[in-house]
């Protein structure tokens, strides 16, 4: 608990250096190089402080009172490096939040260096007494949003706040949804962007994930890297990411629907490979798909639980051995293997892990619907999904903005990441108090090479 270096290097030498006569506590405190040094009378409090790692000094003269000096080891139990572990990006900063609230606040303060960045601290958790901080920028963030977040957090009654993810679920507008309604991220730049565009961030003590809201559906498919690349590549990768969502949701259901009900839509030339690869498979397409999808989910789940080094071996075992062997044993067709592997791959492109999980989960009802009703089933599933998305709200803001309700002002940075000249507005649906982020680029002067 105590920082032994503090004790040996600072506290004890300071005590030794006190050669003069000591009259009272004030003399001692004046000699100690510690800010947090207070006298205490009550035994209960002394016990409490000692448990937190304070050092206690008693004087022969001053009986009934003890001096408590803060020599806590603040960093004990915390990790040394703060690289982002799960949200990796090739370009851009690699610092991420850690389990320490003070450091997290500091990290955010490094990116947004104006005094208007407000941290409001509350305590949540009847047992854990976790410090939770609401961060926003005064003068940009709409006060109503801050107020709503404050109210939501105030209403929480949890015993232990293990992670901010718990808070997210409790304050969510709709708890019966597979979709994450708040962005949780460990990337500092992502939270800095959210806060600077008028969202509210919630930092919870002991959690390396910071959540921000109100979030929209599109937020979960935006990677900070989109902004670090030029807008053409950024847009391309963003669209690829969106398409991969569609692919990972619908590829297997469409495979089932087509092979079970609508064989006539298979082009004649494609019929040949499909038939030959699936000829000796004894199962119906839906059984085949369920078998392979479950295998992939097992692999993923096992990979997530295993230590990193074993995880790699698992990938090889799963990918090659199970895939190859099941085709060899005529349990699945080659084409399905490709489809399932690709759709699993596609689901990993979603930058926010929670959203990627959601998409993987949603695949299964769609698979069952397509097995029951074919193409109609997929349509029914899609409509139900869309209806659900349309009804969702995050911190009272519609989830599907800017598509529905349609907000043309926000299209510059949604599906397409436009050039910085066109993304001068903050997200307008958040009603920020200042709408302009910056002035667009002025004319650059060209060096005249003709002489």
């Amino acid at each position, binding site marked *: 608990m105590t920082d032994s270096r503090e004790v040996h290097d600072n506290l004890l030498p300071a005590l030794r250096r006190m050669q003069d006569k000591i009259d009272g506590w004030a003399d001692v405190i004046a000699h100690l190089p510690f800010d947090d040094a207070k006298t205490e009378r009550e035994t209960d409090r002394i016990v409490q402080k000692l448990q937190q790692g304070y050092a206690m000094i008693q004087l022969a003269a001053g009986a009934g009172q003890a001096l408590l000096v803060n020599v806590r080891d603040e960093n004990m139990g915390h990790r040394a490096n703060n690289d982002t572990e799960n949200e990796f990006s090739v370009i851009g900063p690699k610092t991420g939040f850690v389990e320490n609230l003070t450091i997290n606040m500091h990290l955010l303060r490094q990116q947004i260096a104006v005094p208007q960045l407000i941290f409001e601290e509350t305590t949540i958790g009847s047992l854990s007494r976790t410090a939770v901080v609401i961060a926003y920028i005064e003068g940009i963030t709409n006060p109503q949003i801050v107020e709503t977040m404050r109210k939501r957090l105030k209403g929480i009654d949890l015993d232990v706040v293990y992670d901010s993810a718990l808070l997210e679920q409790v304050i969510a507008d709709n708890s019966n949804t597979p979709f994450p309604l708040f962005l949780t991220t460990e990337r500092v730049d992502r939270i800095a962007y959210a806060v600077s565009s008028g969202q509210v961030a919630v930092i919870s003590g002991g959690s390396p994930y910071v959540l921000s809201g109100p979030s929209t559906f599109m937020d979960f498919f935006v990677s900070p890297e989109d902004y670090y690349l030029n807008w053409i590549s950024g847009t391309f990768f963003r669209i690829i990411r969106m398409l991969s969502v569609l692919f990972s949701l619908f590829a297997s259901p469409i495979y089932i629907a087509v092979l079970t*009900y609508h064989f006539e839509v298979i082009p004649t030339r494609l019929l040949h490979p499909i038939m030959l690869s699936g000829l000796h498979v004894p199962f119906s397409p839906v059984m085949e798909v369920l078998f392979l999808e479950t295998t992939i989910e097992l692999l993923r789940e096992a990979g997530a639980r295993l230590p990193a080094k074993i995880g790699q071996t698992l990938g090889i075992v799963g990918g090659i051995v199970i895939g190859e062997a099941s085709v060899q044993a005529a349990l699945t067709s080659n084409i399905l293997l490709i489809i399932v592997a690709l759709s699993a791959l596609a689901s990993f492109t979603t930058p926010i892990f929670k959203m990627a999980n959601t998409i993987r989960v949603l695949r299964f009802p769609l698979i069952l*619907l397509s097995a*029951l009703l074919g193409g109609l089933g997929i349509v029914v599933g899609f409509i139900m999904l869309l209806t659900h998305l349309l009804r969702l709200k995050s911190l009272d803001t519609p989830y599907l903005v800017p598509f529905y309700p349609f907000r043309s002002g926000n299209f510059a940075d949604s599906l397409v990441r436009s050039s910085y000249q066109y993304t001068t507005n903050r997200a307008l649906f958040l009603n920020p108090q200042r709408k302009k982020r910056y002035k667009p680029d002025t004319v650059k002067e060209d060096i005249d090479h003709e002489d």
Partner: protein
Amino acid sequence: MRTKLLLGMLTLSAMLLAGCGNANIVNRIRILVAVGFDRDGELCKGTVAYPNYIHRKGSLAIMKGTGNDPKLILQHLSLQTPRKIRYNKINTIVFSREIAAGGITRLIDTVARDPSLGGNVLLAVSSCSAEKVINSLDRQELENSPYNVVQQNIRDGNVPLSNLYLFLHDYYSEGKDPSMPSLRLDAERQIEVDGYALFKKERLRLVLDTPEMTLFEILLGKKVKGEVPFTYKGELFVMSIHHGSTRLSANMRAVPAAARFEVRLNGGIRSFQGNRIAKNLFEVDDLAASIEHQLMEKLVALLKKIQANGIDSVGVGEEFRSVDRHWNAAEFYRNVYPAMKFDVRVKATLKNSGAGE
């Protein structure tokens, strides 16, 4: 409570609806791709080709069945197989000339009313028996189906555009008679397009040969392409039409009524006798004039031939109908059409590229 009820209803209806699903798991059915119809005494004989994936790795196999109606033939076929028969992917329907001459209404009616079949199905008449045409597909690849043979030629402009949809359109329209390609087996038992079959309503009347087919296509004006042979100073040349257009206009005031075809052709001449145009630029006009003249004569002859058979495959009647409020099909084809004059004007533009001497 209401949500729960709603969810329950949804699940229940999904389950119930699932019962209506017509599962055709693709590797458990036999997918027919081509069918031929022949007369077999009182009955109709159907020969079908399907890709056999189990024994032949996807090369085609043949089945035969007889019956009075396509559905009955299908039933007969079904009695012979261990797998469900599905005909949704049929892309070729071949009729023997015998059947086509007797009328194909019964067959077409069944086919046209079936939602399983698309409009892009190839209808064709076979000069030999349809059974022979389909039989020739035995152990062939799916790629060699008559559909692909005809489709390739339609794309290249050798055969006029034709499919079930267009056939039905012409069949039900008052001022035009339907038509379809004609197939036969050559000496090596390969399927080839040997002409174009013209129908009077549902009965086959006339089969054009391949040069006439090209001319017919020029008259239709949908996709004017192809190779037109002509003679110039006693030598044979071939004009390759790159693009062109045909405009049909009706002159109903003239006595007798006249139909004017304005044909514009753009093309080039490439023959092994040297680059004629490049050698002598002044010859271009002469060449074009001889093409225009010869083509005009051929087109008029073709129109007269069609006219003499009492059919209107080009759709002259449609053109007259579009300009005449009181147009009456029966009256038109009884009085006007048989005496109609055809005024064909051809404008050929020869283009030449490449280095000259």
